[in-house]
């Protein structure tokens, strides 16, 4: 049987622990963090696009421009201005909208929008083994051969990468990029 003094001390310890817990919660709620605008989905995805481009290496490039082509309906709208004219090491990003598959051969990056995703097989066939970084945001697209595919999980943007396809297209994706991929197909 415990004597009362010990019991009392235990009680005091217990209360101290609980207070510590409550203190911790209170602190975290009122931490002085800048209240900031939350970006919309496609605003944030543009920032991801920039990172994807920056962390990709193309085989020997002559062109001074990186042609970023959007195939299908453009979901980014005005947000693309944050990409326009941006430079990655040597090259400048140039944004183009394309309406036919044949026109895509001149691009270094192709964003395959959801409006044309039903035609994904044909598009990928056309771009196969060309040094083109394909990007999309449709379920399972990487599994089917798109190099980088974004999705939203629990409100956050995540992406998967198909490095087998990247290799076949002659592209090198940086490990800095791949370590953040939710899934890497190889």
């Amino acid at each position, binding site marked *: 049987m415990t004597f009362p003094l010990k019991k009392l001390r235990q009680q005091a310890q217990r209360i101290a*622990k609980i207070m510590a817990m409550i203190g911790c919660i209170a602190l975290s709620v009122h931490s002085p963090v800048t209240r900031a605008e939350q970006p919309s989905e496609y605003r944030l995805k543009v920032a991801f696009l920039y990172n994807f481009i920056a962390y990709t290496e193309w085989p020997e490039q002559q062109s001074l421009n990186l042609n970023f082509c959007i195939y299908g309906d453009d979901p980014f709208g005005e947000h693309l201005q944050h990409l326009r004219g941006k430079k990655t090491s040597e090259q400048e990003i140039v944004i183009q909208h394309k309406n036919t598959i044949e026109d895509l051969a001149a691009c270094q990056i192709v964003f395959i929008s959801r409006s044309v995703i039903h035609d994904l097989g044909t598009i990928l066939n056309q771009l196969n083994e060309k040094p083109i970084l394909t990007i999309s945001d449709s379920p399972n697209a990487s599994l089917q051969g798109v190099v980088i595919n974004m999705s*939203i999980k629990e*409100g956050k943007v995540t992406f998967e990468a198909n490095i087998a396809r990247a290799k076949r297209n002659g592209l090198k994706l940086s490990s800095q990029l791949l370590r953040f991929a939710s899934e890497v197909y190889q």
Partner: protein
Amino acid sequence: MQSLPVLAATNLEQMSLGELMNINVIGASKYEQKQQQAAAAVSIITRKDIRTYGWRTLNQALASLPGIHPTYDYQYEYLGTRGFGLPGDFNTRVLITVNGNRINDATYDQGPTGRDFPLDIDLIERIEFIPGPGSAVYGQNAMLGVVNIVTRKGADIKGAELSASYQTAEIMPQERVTLGKQFDNGTDALISFSGLQSRGANHFFEFGDSGISGFAHRMDGENVKQLFARASHGPLSFDFIYGNRRKDDPTGMFFSDPLVAGQFQRDQRLNTQIQYNDNFANNTLNVLGRAFLGQYRYDNPMIYGGDRTLSTGPSDWHGVELRLLSTALTDHKLMAGFEYQNNTSIKQTFQNFSSPDENITIKSTVMRIGVYLQDEWRITDTLSATVGLRYDHNHWIGSRLSPRGALIWQATPKATFKALYGRAHRSPNSYERDYGDNISQVANPGLHSESVDTAELVADYLAQPTLNLRANVYAWDMYHLIALGIDPLSGLSQYQQNSKKVVARGAELSLDKTWDWGARLRGSFGIQNAEQQNSHLPNSPYYLGKLNFSLPIPLITGLRAGSELQYYGKRKTLDGSNTDSYVLANLNLVTNVPQVKGLEASLSIYNLFNENYLHPAADTNWQNTFWQPGRTVRFRLDYRF
């Protein structure tokens, strides 16, 4: 510590990928947003969390969530949910599934959450806990919650994983070998073997009315063997889970002879399924079909007055499920399904090797069918509704209807409100209904199903891109509860239905905060009151507090600490007294070993403060309460190549 970057829409391009990945978006596209807006207060535990906190069992992982209070009786681990955790209840009111396959067995309906759960916790990719009634989709047992487990894939292993650990107090080595790969043709395969051999600690037990007490010397041993295999190709997938767990019994469960060695519980579970999952009609129709098969084996040798006895409870079942999910109708997500399960053989035996005249064998079978329909209707951009209904039939209970309804209102881009209602049920299991040896228990074939009505309000508030707050209040009323009582004719134990409903009311507050320097805090506080006839339920704490904090340790690359602190209020025991409230702390340190590529080391300290605390026992125990394990340390190495 760095401060959060200002997310002014202009400088996102300057942020690193790691920072970007921590930003929540608003106005995500329709389909994905609906995924987030599940009609329940869903909690998700990922593999990363399991690694960060060093959790050893499903029960430990779930204990970090709001509304969960675990119980351990040196036989099994039990999952108390929202105030309900009757001693002696084998988690029959929570449904456990792995990749959609039901794990609760056909003899006892037990939802395994301890080491009798047949899958190694390290093979889990994600645990989804859906509190509240799930019968409108999942059928019976989903009364207080559904634990849905998604396993890892071969593509995630990419080679081999070896894991070995040693735990001090229990003298417990544990090991795992996993091989996995995704082949060039798209086939994904994984196979894994796990084992655990524990000598166990020597604990002191009192044996109630027998007047006996003493140290149970070397009677707490445990041995686990597990096999998991999984393969998928295109729309087809196959998984196979086998677990064999033997736990020595130091407590003399079911009033067997105290402090006598050789008494144990052995649970063997085999769950396998083939699944077909594909999209049709321009991705507007998803078809899921699966065929499953399950086997459960239970062996419980006990000694009564020196006589050696053996109880067993094997059961076999199989079945099919078909589910169609259509988004063809604008703003509607329609789901229709059919499930059939045939419990082809349920056998319960008792053998007394000294007096064979006491031997009994009870056989039963039962076939269950269920049909369900659900619609998620997006009424406006900010308002959606879910309505669902499931019809279940089996010849023990006849027909049951389980309806469900939810309204989800995205009031502002940051605030979402949900109003939920659901009814769920459970059919008596064969043990409750059929087992009778006329020595300890008499059967009760007249048992009907029990049911629960639940109403809940949930508010989610995204205070900052990195801070989620949630508040929910709930009320559940349980009718015709099946519990152990006394048969007035024989004076023996019998499972009976209580005419008095169980009434519970509760509220939970939780938060989830991440920092861009890599730390994360999850915390919750819950108040719950569950009573029957104005009497508080046993083993039901009023207050629960949970705090999980993980952070990268500065200056040491790759070292991460995960600490948890849990507060549990007092719990009533069967003799009317209360166990004291307690605070449990666990600490886990995990790091990559920089000298060896692919090597990871971790050190875990469970019950850090060596807190002495009690859990209530059941009326099948000699004891009224059990002292819980003290501090123990685990060292673990994982090697990937």
